[in-house]
């Protein structure tokens, strides 16, 4: 089970620059769909990569679904030479994305984020409009239902305002 609160708190307290996307972002916007992992887009600067490596090391990140015993090392060099990582950690499942389809990098997404403070943790979350856009861009049939719900949430919000 993923401890969403602990994942967000750990990344924020470690000074990692990241944007919450995916199912947790959808939950923040009001979705009732179940998600089992935290998806974040992280900034790919050397300093942020170093913070990301140091912050998660105590939680023993490992490649989710990979056989045990692979010579995987969670360090800055591994992050720099890779891009997207689907990890299992002691806090739960965490997808660290250097870029996302239809959205690009941290820098490209940042103008389309809002700052939220759940549990006293300040973090950036992709805004609802762009969350819908990136889900559409991914073009996965499994996302149709999620897109429909997010669009309905947007319509309900517009009715209220």
């Amino acid at each position, binding site marked *: *089970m*993923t*401890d*969403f*609160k602990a994942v967000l708190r750990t990344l924020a307290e470690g000074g990692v620059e990241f944007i919450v996307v995916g199912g*947790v972002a959808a*939950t*923040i916007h*009001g*979705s*009732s769909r*179940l*998600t*089992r992992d935290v998806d974040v887009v992280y900034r790919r600067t050397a300093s942020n990569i170093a913070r990301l490596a140091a912050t998660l090391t105590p939680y023993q990140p490992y490649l989710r679904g990979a056989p045990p015993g692979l010579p995987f090392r969670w360090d800055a060099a591994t992050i720099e030479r890779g891009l997207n990582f689907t990890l299992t950690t002691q806090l739960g499942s965490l997808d660290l994305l250097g870029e996302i389809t239809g959205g690009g990098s941290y820098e490209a997404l940042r103008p389309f984020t809002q700052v*939220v*403070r*759940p*549990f006293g943790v300040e973090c950036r979350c992709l805004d609802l409009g762009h969350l819908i856009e990136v889900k*559409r861009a991914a*073009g996965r049939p499994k996302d*149709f*239902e999620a*897109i*429909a*719900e997010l*669009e*309905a*949430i947007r319509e*309900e*919000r517009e009715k*209220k305002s």
Partner: protein
Amino acid sequence: MTPAERSSIDDIVDLYKRDVDRTLIRERLSRSIEERLEDLMNFEAFADELREAGRRARLHD
């Protein structure tokens, strides 16, 4: 969005949208972000319990 800007994906999403429970959405929007995340974690824990119960039941079949 004008009809010319629409794609078949928009038509598919509209079909799915018919089945979206708007009362559930309104209820969710009335809750704080913290409450939404707490609900998600509780739901996840409940789903895990159900899965475990199912696994145990299959072992005893």
